[in-house]
């Protein structure tokens, strides 16, 4: 898929959460770009800050604990960080949207599906009820829900998980947004349904050319759907590059360890495979490379200094001192 202009760009984004165990640097200097029609995979162990990055972009960090402390979020060149809540409301849903992980809890159990879908449509366009209803039917048809007119009257508990997630998808793209964040949208689905859902997302993207930030911990999905990948560890991106190249030659020891532990690329796994040791607690980060304590190549400098980002290929970067010495094309 040919990539168009950059729609979403994060520049050195920092977001902190105040918890009772101290300030957690959940997002700690993340930079990334997603272009029109492109899918960027954001990969990492659970708790590495992927979801917090996504929520930061929508300015929906948990309140009052979460706060963006530095950096820029550029949506089509426009910085979202200084925006007021009022301005953000006009951006959410219409220009940038998100699919949540668990379809079982993403829909309000006490309102019908139609109610919730029409509500999403009504936020950004006025119109008589009937027209909105027709639009809602069309939206359901586009996410391949059969008999949409009847489904609109259903309540969430009457639908299967896969069906609910399609509805959530329909709500998310009803804007229609330019940027879609998908936060592990298939993790809670059956394996067979997962594939259908990914296909659906690809169709939507092809039709609308939206930029997609796909959060997952599943390398199989990355290989299938993502044009580029960014690997996140302890609040930072440690390696990024085109999917094919990164898979062929991962440069960061963390990426390598992750890939080494994946048995087959097309087999989806529920969790990232094990790597010895534990990631650092995000409220007490070591001064040097965060992966150093678990890295078998780590030396003194790794313990002391956080590595710079080195270009290791075309659009391929790694934050590792070992990448410094290796030949870059």
């Amino acid at each position: 898929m040919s990539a168009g202009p950059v729609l979403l760009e994060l520049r050195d984004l920092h977001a902190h959460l105040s918890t009772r165990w101290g300030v957690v640097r959940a997002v700690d200097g993340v930079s990334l770009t997603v272009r029109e029609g492109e899918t960027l995979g954001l990969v990492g162990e659970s708790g590495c800050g992927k979801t917090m990055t996504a929520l930061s972009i929508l300015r929906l960090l948990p309140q009052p604990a979460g706060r963006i402390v530095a950096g820029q979020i550029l949506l089509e060149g426009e910085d979202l960080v200084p925006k007021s809540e009022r301005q953000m409301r006009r951006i959410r849903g219409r220009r940038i949207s998100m699919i949540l992980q668990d379809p079982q809890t993403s829909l309000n159990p006490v309102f019908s599906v139609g109610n919730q879908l029409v509500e999403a449509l009504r936020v950004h366009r006025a119109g008589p009820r009937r027209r909105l209803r027709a639009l809602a039917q069309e939206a359901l048809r586009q996410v391949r829900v059969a008999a949409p007119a009847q489904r609109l009257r259903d309540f969430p508990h009457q639908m299967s998980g896969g069906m609910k997630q399609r509805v959530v998808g329909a709500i998310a793209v009803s804007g229609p947004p330019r940027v879609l964040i998908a936060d592990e949208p298939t993790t809670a689905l059956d394996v067979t349904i997962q594939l259908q859902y990914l296909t659906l997302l690809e169709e939507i993207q092809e039709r609308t050319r939206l930029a997609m930030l796909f959060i997952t911990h599943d390398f199989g999905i990355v290989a299938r759907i993502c044009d580029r990948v960014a690997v996140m560890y302890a609040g930072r991106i440690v390696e990024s590059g085109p999917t094919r190249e990164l898979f062929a030659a991962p440069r960061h020891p963390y990426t390598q360890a992750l890939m080494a532990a994946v048995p087959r690329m097309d087999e989806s796994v529920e969790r990232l495979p094990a790597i010895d040791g534990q990631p650092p607690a995000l409220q007490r980060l070591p001064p040097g490379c965060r992966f150093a304590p678990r890295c078998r190549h780590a030396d003194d400098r790794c313990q002391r200094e956080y590595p710079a980002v080195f270009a290791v290929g075309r659009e391929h970067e790694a934050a590792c001192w070992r990448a410094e010495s290796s030949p870059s094309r």
Partner: protein
Amino acid sequence: MARVDTRLPLDVGPETTTAAAPAGGRGALGRLPWPSFLIIVGMLLVALGAPLLAPHSATEQSLPDKLQPPAWQDGGSTRHLLGTDLLGRDVLSRLIYGARVSLTVAAAALLAGGGIGLAVGIVSGYAGGRLDSLLMRVVDATLTFPTILIALLLAVSLGQGLRTMVIAITLILWARFARVVRGEVLTVKGRDFVALARVHGCSHVRIMAMHILPNVTNTFMVLLSLHIGFVILVEASLSFLGAGIPPPTPSWGQMVADGRGQIASAWWLSFLPGVAILLVVLAFNLFGDWLRDWLDPRLRQQL
């Protein structure tokens, strides 16, 4: 392939910060509600030392001294610090002896009602099946029924007195205890040591007494402390309605009721015992909240 759990400490971190405020754990002792604690200790001491502390008899009438205002009011004297009632009885002394009545009723009723509730809860949770669903139906029915009506009925048919009062409050209390204890038992029952005890051929009674009971003790203690204030309030309400401990024994609820007729001329007669009830119930409730957060924070959702 190896599927090792790679959960980060963060998994219990930021995601949960938006949930309930930190409860229990370290430092809870430091957050002991001292004012409540002092009120409770004070009340216990007053109740125990009533004969020593009370300046006058609580029941002796002296009509010439009737309706004297408290010492700080015009016409008050230090002889009767909080004034006297319609029959010339010393209000302070009656308040002091009234603490005894409140605590006696609370202790007896909690022991009886709590004990029955504990037993029913353990049996119901442990036995499960039809017995469990039957008992829980009865519990539900009891909880939705205004049980105070039964208490009033008892007072009229059995006659007023400590015994009637305790039976009445037991009827109100047991269901509240049974429901929470049963819930606890259900979680304990599934643990391995119960299965192990069964494998070892322990009898049901023995398992309930030796394995289940110790594990619901914390919950039971929390329930007890959370209900002291409630029982004192119920006792006061029944006394107020003329269904409590019969006069002339002083009880706070009765005192509020007695002072009602003189509210325009002698406001302190109703006001002071009410303040006593309010403070003591408040103290016990706050103390109970603290004990819950300290011993068994999970109960926060249920209580």
